[in-house]
């Protein structure tokens, strides 16, 4: 069964550093998403992406965040200058047949 895959599974970085989280969505899906989950809190919507454009973003998704589909398979989330409060689990998802399929997540720890 096809799956959404994410790398890295865990990344530790220093405050102020740039981080890129990578996702490979399911191959025939056209809609892509990023979510985050701070430890002990709810899963929060960050951004949705379709046809090489952001279709919707939350207030969390400020100028420090960007998304890109650099080639036909990857979908990336970049955080330009990480803050301590960016420490969270980041989930990628892609949508097909009305259902969102999630990756296993990338844990980001900002020191």
């Amino acid at each position, binding site marked *: 069964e096809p799956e959404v895959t994410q790398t890295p599974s865990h990344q530790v970085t220093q405050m102020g550093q740039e981080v890129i989280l990578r996702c490979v969505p399911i191959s025939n899906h056209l809609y892509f998403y990023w*979510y985050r989950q701070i430890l002990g809190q*709810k899963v929060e919507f960050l951004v949705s992406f*379709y046809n090489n454009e952001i*279709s*919707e973003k939350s207030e969390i998704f400020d100028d420090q965040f960007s998304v890109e589909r650099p080639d036909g398979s990857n979908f990336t989330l970049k955080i330009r200058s990480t803050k301590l409060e960016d420490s969270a689990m980041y*989930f990628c998802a892609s949508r097909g047949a*009305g*259902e*969102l399929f*999630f990756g296993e997540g990338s844990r980001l720890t900002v020191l």
Partner: protein
Amino acid sequence: AQRVTQPEKLLSVFKGAPVELKCNYSYSGSPELFWYVQYSRQRLQLLLRHISRESIKGFTADLNKGETSFHLKKPFAQEEDSAMYYCASFLYNTDKLIFGTGTRLQVFP
């Protein structure tokens, strides 16, 4: 605003007991409602969606538009049902799936 409320953070039951995980949504439109499950250290997985009206792993959920609820039920809980359960609402016009805060279900032997 699109919002999903799960009032219980934790629900503990014994094996064989009935389970009901509550979910209320608030939106004047017609969202599509889902239940996702997250077993320990695993990814979020779709459990069921209101339009399919299926029963998965013995779980059912009925959309009640009058009460804006989509409660998840199972008549006899099993230990392997222990997990985090998230109710979620999707709107096609915003392309956004919004989650509730989740309910942890613990099923004791």
